[in-house]
Structure formats: structure tokens, C-alpha cells
């Protein structure tokens, strides 16, 4: 244990105040159209992603069924909102807690079975479990609402201080409030003995057992806590959308959170926050523009797994490290060149995919495709030649520029490593 005497950890207060400030001013900056609803969605996905990362990033537990906890939490939350009994006395502000405790209860129940194993077997059990819950949810329509789902009205009870949760802005601030609290709680978890033990269980389970800890118990407790926060995000989602359906407990939803969190970066606490923004950008905003968004998301994910397994956060941190050592001036020119040629190739690739999609899936609407106000005839040769030209230029340019960048990058990083060794010695 590292003993440090810090009467006032100024940096930490700054970071958390900055986070709170961003949450408060975000709706003032992004105020156009659907921005508020997108921000609200990002908030719920952030909580969901952070809770998922408690398993994957901190515990090394690859789960394909995390939506079970958020989805069941959402169902209990929505029934609490609809009920006239005990549920009616819970104010909307605290409805996420109903979801949280429901998620936690199912974490206690299911986690006992799933956390018996780790690694690949754990992944498969969670996949089986999510399919089990999804299939059962269609069997009990009175609780799960069948295909249509369960709807509610979030404006209920007496408005407290004029807050009725009718306007979207009030829902946003509710989500932001819970996001802030949950983020602090989940960060605090990483500092507790249990949070440290789950890291140890991820890295070297055998040694943890030799020290005398029960790895299954550590995984089980972590999963229960993670399920609690997943349930909170489910409850917030129920308030935000006012509908919960079987899709909320599906393997698709679970796979999506895995994609988002991994894209953000699983080895950093804040990675899922980044992943939530990118993920909602892909699945909500991009899907308005193009039918190919799932292809782009899948491709983005595969490329990240292949070339940057630590996610977007690691790319940003590596650049920041170079910057903090004052060597950024040496890499920015080649970096810019690589980005420029990649952009050219990428533009060609995107245009080609869009035209292909139009050709196969929207053939019934004629061969004229409209994107960004431009009309393109996908049956003519000219646009395809342009696409091929852009792609070729991108690939040739990349091949020419990349080795130079790689050389500079390796050189700079070697220097940084040398400096770090020097300062440590």
C-alpha cells in the first residue's frame, strides 16, 4: 500500500468539478433539435458502459449478457412507475434506484451461476443467460409486454419545486445527476480493497488464490455491484424513453455495450465515457444519414481490435504523453500527412460503400442517390472511377507516408522511454 500525505488533492477536485461543469453546460452549448435527447441517451449509455467496464476492464470478465441487468432493472422501474401501490410513493427522481436494486437482485441470482467460471466459459454462460432471459421475456407478456413492450408516463405524482420531468431538459439533468453520482461511486470502487482485488483476479487469479482469496467470490461481488449500476442506467432509460421492450434484455443490446466500451478503451476508467459518445454517434446520429452505419461500426471495431486493442483512450493518451514531453513538434507534420492521405482513401471508401448500398438495397428507388445535396447516378461509370481514384490515391499515399511517420513515432517514443528511465534512476 502506498502511503501518501495529501491534505488537499487539488487535481482530483479540479477533474470532478470540470466533469460536473461539462454536464451542466452541455445542454446550453448543444441546444439544437434533437441534441438534448441525444445527450440524455449518451448519459444513460455512459453509466451502462462504466458498469460494464467494471467487469471487462477491471475484472477481465468478458460478458455478452450485461443487458440482462439493465433491461430487468428497466422493467422493474417502469412497473414501479405504473403501479398504484408501493411504486406510486417512489418519486421519479428515485426511480433509477428501483432499477438499480432490481438489477442488483438479479446480479445476486444470475451472478452466482455465471461467476463460477472466468474467461471464455464465462463469456459463453453469459451469452446463454441473455438468450434465456430474452426468450423467457417473450413467454410472459403480462410482465414484459410481449413484442410491443411496456409504456409509461414519466409525468406522475406532484411536481416538486416545479420539476415534473415533462420537459426533456429536466430529464437530462436527472440523468446528468445520476451519471455524476454513479461515476464518482464507480471510481471510488476502483480504490476500495475489492476494486484492487478484482484487478488482481484479472491479472493473476492463481496467485490471488494462493494468497487466500476466493476468486469466485471477488468476481461475484463485483458483478453484483456492476449489475446495480447497470440497473440504474436501465431505470434512467425507462424514464427517458417511457417504453421498455424485450429488446432491452437482448443479446443485441449486450453486444452493443461491449462494442462501445471496447471502442472507448477498456483499460482506462474514463474509456467508456468516450465509447458512449462514439457509440451513440454511430447508432443514433449516423443511422439517420446512411443505412450502412452498422457496417461502419463493425469495421471501426474490428480495426480497433486489430490495431489499437486499448481503444480510443489509449490513442489520445499516447499523443498526450508525447505532448507532455514536449516532442509534439516532431510528430505533427508526418501525423498530419498520414491523416490527410487516410482521409482521401476513407472518402473514396465511404463513397463506394454508399453507392454499393444504394445499388443493392435501394434499387427500387432508381439509380440516383442523394447525399449532402449532391445527386449521384450509381449506374454511371464516372462516380465509380472517382471512387477508385480516391481509393488508389489513399492507398498509394499511405504507403509512401506511413513508414516516415512510423520511424518518427518510434524514435520519439524511444526517447520518452529513455527519459522516463533516466528520471526513475
Amino acid at each position, binding site marked *: 500500500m502506498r502511503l501518501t500525505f495529501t491534505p488537499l488533492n487539488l487535481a482530483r477536485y479540479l477533474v470532478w468539478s470540470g466533469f460536473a461543469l461539462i454536464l451542466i453546460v452541455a445542454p446550453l452549448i448543444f441546444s439544437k433539435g434533437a441534441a438534448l435527447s441525444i445527450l440524455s441517451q449518451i448519459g444513460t449509455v455512459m453509466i451502462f458502459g462504466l458498469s460494464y467496464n467494471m467487469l471487462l476492464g477491471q475484472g477481465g470478465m468478458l460478458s455478452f449478457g450485461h443487458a440482462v441487468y439493465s433491461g430487468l432493472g428497466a422493467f422493474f422501474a417502469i412497473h414501479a412507475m405504473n403501479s398504484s401501490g408501493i411504486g406510486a410513493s417512489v418519486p421519479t427522481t428515485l426511480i433509477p434506484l428501483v432499477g438499480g436494486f432490481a438489477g442488483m437482485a438479479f446480479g445476486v441470482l444470475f451472478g452466482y451461476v455465471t461467476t463460477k*467460471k472466468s474467461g471464455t466459459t464465462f463469456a*459463453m454462460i453469459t451469452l446463454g443467460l441473455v*438468450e434465456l432471459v430474452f426468450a423467457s421475456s417473450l*413467454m410472459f407478456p403480462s410482465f414484459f409486454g410481449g413484442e410491443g413492450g411496456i409504456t409509461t408516463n414519466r409525468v406522475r405524482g406532484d411536481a416538486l419545486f416545479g420539476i415534473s420531468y415533462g420537459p426533456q431538459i429536466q430529464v437530462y439533468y436527472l440523468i446528468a445527476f445520476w451519471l455524476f453520482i454513479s461515476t464518482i461511486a464507480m471510481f471510488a470502487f476502483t480504490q476500495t480493497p475489492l476494486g484492487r482485488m478484482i484487478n488482481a483476479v484479472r491479472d493473476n487469479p492463481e496467485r490471488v488464490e494462493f494468497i487466500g482469496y476466493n476468486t469466485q467470490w471477488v468476481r461475484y461481488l463485483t458483478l453484483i455491484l456492476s449489475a446495480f449500476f447497470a440497473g440504474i442506467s436501465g431505470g434512467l432509460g425507462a424514464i427517458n424513453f417511457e417504453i421498455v421492450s424485450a429488446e432491452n434484455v437482448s443479446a443485441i443490446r449486450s453486444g452493443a455495450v461491449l462494442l462501445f466500451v471496447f471502442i472507448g478503451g477498456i483499460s482506462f476508467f474514463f474509456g467508456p465515457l468516450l465509447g458512449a459518445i462514439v457509440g451513440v454517434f454511430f447508432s443514433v446520429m449516423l443511422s439517420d444519414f446512411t443505412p450502412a452505419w452498422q457496417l461502419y461500426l463493425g*469495421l471501426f471495431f*474490428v480495426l480497433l*481490435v486489430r490495431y489499437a486493442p486499448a481503444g480510443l483512450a489509449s490513442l489520445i493518451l499516447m499523443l498526450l504523453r508525447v505532448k507532455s514531453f514536449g516532442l509534439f513538434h516532431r510528430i505533427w507534420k508526418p501525423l498530419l500527412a498520414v491523416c490527410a492521405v487516410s482521409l482521401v482513401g476513407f472518402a473514396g471508401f465511404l463513397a463506394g460503400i454508399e453507392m454499393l448500398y444504394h445499388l443493392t438495397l435501394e434499387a427500387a428507388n432508381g439509380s440516383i442517390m442523394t447525399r449532402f445535396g449532391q445527386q449521384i447516378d450509381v449506374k454511371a461509370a464516372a462516380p465509380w472511377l472517382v471512387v477508385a481514384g480516391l481509393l488508389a490515391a489513399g492507398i498509394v499515399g499511405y504507403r509512401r507516408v506511413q513508414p516516415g511517420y512510423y520511424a518518427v513515432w518510434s524514435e520519439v517514443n524511444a526517447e520518452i522511454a529513455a527519459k522516463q528511465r533516466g528520471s526513475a534512476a
Partner: protein
Amino acid sequence: MEFTLFTLLNGVSYGLLLFMLSSGLTLIFSMMGVLNFAHASFYMLGAYMAYTISSVLGFWPALVLAPIVVGLIGALVERYGLRPLHKYGHIPELLFTFGMSYLIVELVQLIWGRAAVPYPIPKELDGPLFTLFSTSFPIYRGFMMLVALSMLASIYLVLTRTRVGLVIQAALTHPDAVEALGHNVPRIFMWVFGGGCALAGLAGVIGGNAFVTEPGMAATVGSIIFVVVVVGGMGSLAGAFVASILIGVLQTFAVALDYSLMTMFNGLGANITEATPGYELLKLTISQSAAILPFLLLVLILIFRPKGLMGTRE
């Protein structure tokens, strides 16, 4: 009697199809430790390839060519996607195949469209094989069983009776020793991966026209074959066989049985109505719960026999 026999036959033929899929998955898993999440996607790819090839050349060339093409695609995925990730451990490999399953579904929709394609059963295999009592058994079901069984026999013979099979078996347990003897183990991995994918492709060729060839077909069998692999015991080919047949028969029987706990209790003299507590659960028929049976079996196996039916390791 008639019902039992035909349901059993249908169940076995479905189970054999599941085995064609899970055998490749098991082979890849036991060799490389990689759970190929995109395995069902290769099954779908096989069906679509067979649809395209059979519309040009006919069904029989497709039966041979489509699995070969799928196997080559699989080998390429292993060579350029998975092999560089091997040094990072199994989780990135698993995630890579997970991402591939997304990509393949999208690419299939891009090439063949979002609707189901008309991939018919060939004329010479259309019709009843035999008629017993008043029900007839289609030739194509028999053909599926024949292909699956001959595939089972040939895998067994290749793995146990040929030099290549012995090298593969040795590489399963002692990759370092095999490498020291001068065999290129990464290349063996590549061909095993490709071979497993080709088996999935073959299952797609004969499963695609028995069922429906559509972009959702990977998702329908995807999770079932993982259940098969876990229930049978991770990495056990014999276990995968038993589990496939078990789940195939179980599901086929369950779909056909229209009984619930309510009919049973009411038959015994109880009087269950909507007012009875737990009515929702009691009125569920077995056929309604058919979809959850494999997953229920998975959970029960994991609680009572965690290493699977024939598994050797936990």
C-alpha cells in the same frame, strides 16, 4: 408411435446439422483456444455462396465449391486477422471474431439484400423418401443425415488415420514439440481454422435450403451451437456430437408438444383457472417454452456438471 418416430427422425437430422456446425467450432476451440464467434456467420456465408453457385452451375457443384470458398475465406481471416492478435491472448481474438460476425452480416446484406433469397431444394432430392402409416419422410432430410454422417466419418478418419491428422492432434496438445520437429504450427492453425469454417459452410449449403437463407440465419443458430459446445464439454468432439443430437431431439419434440402444467393438473382432477396463483406459468405449453430449453439445459449443466457431458477440463 408414428408421431414419436417422425419427430425423432426430424430431431436427429436437425441435431446432425447442429453437429456439423459445432464440430468445426470445437475443432478450432480445442486447437487454438479461440472461440470463433463468427462461426455461424460462415454457415450463413456457405448458404449464400451455394445459392449463387447453384443458380449458375447447379446444386452438386455448389455442394463442393461453396465449402471450399468459405474455407478459403476463413483461412484468410485467420492469417491476416487472428494470427497477429494471438500474442495478446484469447480475449482480443474472441472480440475480433465478434466484430467479424457484425461485418459478415452487413456484407451479406450488402451483396444479397436484406430479404430471404430463393434457394430451392434440388429437384432430384425433392419428394418423399418413404411413407410410413400416413406420414412421409422427405428425401432431403435423409440426404442431410447422410452428408452429416459421412462428414463425421471422414473427420474421424482424417484425424486418426492420416499423417496430417496425427500432426494436428499432436499440435493440439504439444505445439512447441511439433514446431521443434519442423512443422509449421501457425500454418496448421490456419488450415484448421479454414477447415472448421468449411465445415460450417457445408452445413450452410445443406441447411440453407432445408430452412431459409436470410441474413438472420446466423443469429438463429449462433447461440445454440455455443450451448452445444458447452453442454458437450469444451473441446470434446464426441461430447459435441452427443449434445447436438440431444438438443436437436429435445427442441423438435418440445415444439410439437402442446401440453402445459395446467393440462396435466387439470387432467389429474385439479381445477386451474385464471384466478389460480401462478396461472401465467402453469398455462405455458411445452411448445411455447421450446426456445428456452437449450439455454435452460446450459444453465443446469453448468450448475451440476460444469465440465460438460464429456469434457475433461473445467
